[in-house]
């Protein structure tokens, strides 16, 4: 259950590109706690698909612009 994730994200840069949106503001708009946004940004929690879509929608970007999934190491 507790394992490293290959899901990365650009939430931090998207926040800054969107008027330096605070983590609290993003959390309010997504409907989660600020701690969850912090955990996602730091790669400590992979959001559900629905939460990921909601985050991408706040920034009006496609899902794969907000979240990336690294290739498996060869």
């Amino acid at each position, binding site marked *: 259950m*507790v394992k490293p994730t290959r899901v990365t994200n650009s939430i931090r840069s998207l926040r800054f590109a969107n008027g330096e949106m605070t983590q609290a503001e993003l959390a309010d708009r997504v409907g989660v*706690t600020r*701690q*969850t946004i912090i955990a996602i940004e730091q790669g400590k929690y992979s959001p559900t698909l629905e939460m990921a879509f909601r985050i991408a929608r706040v920034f009006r970007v496609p899902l794969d612009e907000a979240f990336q999934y690294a290739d498996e190491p060869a």
Partner: protein
Amino acid sequence: MTFMEKSSWVVLVVALPTLLVYVALILPQVLGKPMAEISWVQPMAFAIVGFVVANVLGNVVAAVSNPSEADREDQRDREIGHYGARFGSWLVIAGSCSALVLAMTGADHFWIANALFLGGIAGSILSAVTKIAAYRGSFQAW
């Protein structure tokens, strides 16, 4: 810190002293008295009621200290809650199975009640520790 994490800390902070005080009251009797003379019903009842009341009060304090977070629970909180409860339930089940075996073998009420009590409180501690570790470290539900 989310309200759910604070709530887990409350369980831990309340359960550990409850367990230690109870063991400190009962263990000397177990080692030094015949089974029939051990006074365990009252300490156990006080421990259970004290645990529940202290938990409620702790959660009220946590809620009052930050009312805007008190009713806020998201997907991560629910996943961590289930994750912690799953670990804790193993000890509750172990305690219940032990009590069942003790009852089947005609053991004294003292041992049956204590198997249930210790399974329950140890399960609460393990569940709280697991949740806190998930909140503090990395948690991936899938």
